[in-house]
């Protein structure tokens, strides 16, 4: 194996390992927290202590991944196969069609008019107000805090 393959493989393993450790730590905190909550319904599932204790496992792998990324970037190592042509896929054909061009222009105009009309109606029917309300008072569940 050449140097490039080795470094790219190390990087891939470190990235996968970081993700695995993150997921494992998260699940571990969650399961431990669930047990604590079964005994005391007021107990938090996620605590600063639990997160800190798991960070000890995540940080070394994460820092190693960053270090290898920097080394690779400095050495200019990358998987250049992504710059090569892809084979084995279907490719559509570009065909000139004047009628399509004309109809696109017409549809575009209709959509533009509709969009403006809808926005104006929305301002008056309260749907713009709804957008503002939901964006200003956030629901905890909706951002994954529930």
């Amino acid at each position, binding site marked *: 194996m050449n140097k*490039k393959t080795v470094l*790219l493989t190390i990087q891939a393993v470190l990235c996968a390992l970081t993700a695995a450790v993150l997921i494992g730590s998260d699940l571990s905190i969650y399961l431990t927290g669930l047990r604590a909550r079964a005994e005391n319904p007021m107990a938090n599932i996620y605590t600063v202590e639990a997160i800190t204790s798991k960070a000890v496992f995540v940080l070394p792998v994460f820092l190693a991944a960053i270090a290898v990324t920097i080394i690779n970037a400095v050495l200019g190592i990358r998987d250049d196969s992504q710059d090569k042509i892809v084979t084995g896929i279907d490719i559509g054909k570009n065909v000139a069609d004047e009628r399509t061009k004309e109809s696109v222009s017409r549809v575009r105009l209709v959509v533009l008019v509709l969009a403006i009309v809808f926005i104006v109606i929305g301002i008056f029917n309260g749907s713009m107000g709804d957008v503002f309300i939901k964006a200003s008072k956030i629901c*905890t569940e909706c951002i994954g805090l529930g």
Partner: protein
Amino acid sequence: MDNNISSTRISWWEAHKPTKRRIIQLYSALLYNAHLRGFAEGKIFTGKSKAICVPGFNCYSCPGAIGACPLGSIQNALGSLNKHIGFYVLGVILLYGMLLGRTICGWICPLGMIQELLHKIPTPKLKKSRFTRTLSYLKYIIIVIFVVAIPVYYGIFQGIPVPGFCKYICPAGTFEGAMGMIPKNLSFLSMLGPIFTQKFIIMVIIGLACIFCYRSFCRFLCPLGAIYGMFNKLAVIGVKIDTDRCNNCGVCVRFCKMDVKTVGDHECIHCAQCVARCHQGALSMKAGKFTLIQPSKEEFVNAEEVKKFKKIGPVFCFIAALALVVALVWTNFLDPSLKPKSAAPAPSSNTEATVSNEANDESDEDKGTELSNSDQEADNNENTETAKKDDDTDTASDSTDAEVDNSDVSDANAEADISEDTATEIEESTAPIGYEVGNKLQDFEVTCLDGSSFNLAETRGKVVFINLWATYCGPCVKELPHFNELYHEHEGDIAMLAVHANLTTEDVNAYIAEKGWDIPFVIDDENETIFEIVNGSLALPQTIVLNRKGEVIYNQVGSITSEVLEVLYKQAAE
């Protein structure tokens, strides 16, 4: 030197310097999240600009966000179709789609930029194939299930707003919202549960996938990209093909990292990288008739347009820079929402604080909510308390007589007796005024939606539950029945107030009547007086529990179970 290591003919900077597209991506990410002080304070922006949907994928719960996420807004609009049609969001999506299509994904989506940066991490990469192309249709299934079906089903048939994609999948919500807020709001940790665990794992998996596979989220999961993709053929701005020059060699498609079949189809993000690849000079990036990126072949370059572009370019850059500066200054220093709304009681050692709400009277009357000052002088309270306590006990007994059997009546009376006994023993708290656990909550008086009065000073001797909620908040609506149940279970010993956020476009009274809840409800006034008193967060729901002395024993954001409510009641009653 190893032959496989990239050539050193061009300098490192030349190879790695940001492209124009990357600069535009960074610019738009900064513009969408111009409220930089939000990251430092852990608070979201609540200025009027939040009524405007930004084109790209940017969670509105991000502390920096100054606009609304179009996808979150679509789901919320679909969930409230029975109230009114979300014409505004529909119009905005049509407008963005018609003008830009998926150019938004390629040029001005912060999440797209993050995915591209992750893909820069040097690892072996997965190339596109028939499999990835098939997988790219997954996002349409996600639209149907999570963006349409779940919000419509829960919103219309269950009356609970549930934005399915935001709640179960969205990595932007977890990354920008949850991860952006928690470091500055450690109390939010208390509400993290299964949904966070699930969404965190999804976020990590998507992040990992993006490292190995170009724009994995964008290609396989993003419903917003799928929606804009439907407009791609219509979009005014994008990569256009000169069919007279194109010889259908397919180089553009074969080099493209997205799952396109032709340039400009529903998968194309108009990143314009194919323009340089085209040997025929058939591709260019256009905005209507104006060419933004000229064909690669010099013979097809329009010299006049290049000249024009060189003239207009600096002007356009200046306007863009000015817009960013204005957004930064306005959203961080000048916006009216940044100013304190009322004389909110910060935690202090003053035990005889009063709230001046005179300025609020006008708006309160408009809403049928009357907030007035209440004196905290201990002697007065004791007198009022004793008199009020008798009334409460009687009322509790009366209502119980009418509704439940004799054993329940005796239980309620016994509880009321205990409460009465305890009330006589209650000493006025000497804790400092504030909203934190151990503080005594600032007194206030409000007229509830049913016309009754709620005076916090008169609740001494009772356990007090204050719940901050809104009709448009799913977890709030789910937990309120537990409060209602608890209120009736310990009637006479509990004082309860459910405070609806001041922002609403629907009839809260009718909503409460429909649900059959009969605890005291109030809508907070324009200045958010009650929210300020209890340190109401910008996230809902929030529960505040006071013991018999009026001291805060619990003040947390997040939904609450009936089990926890019972534990809190017992703790407060001790």
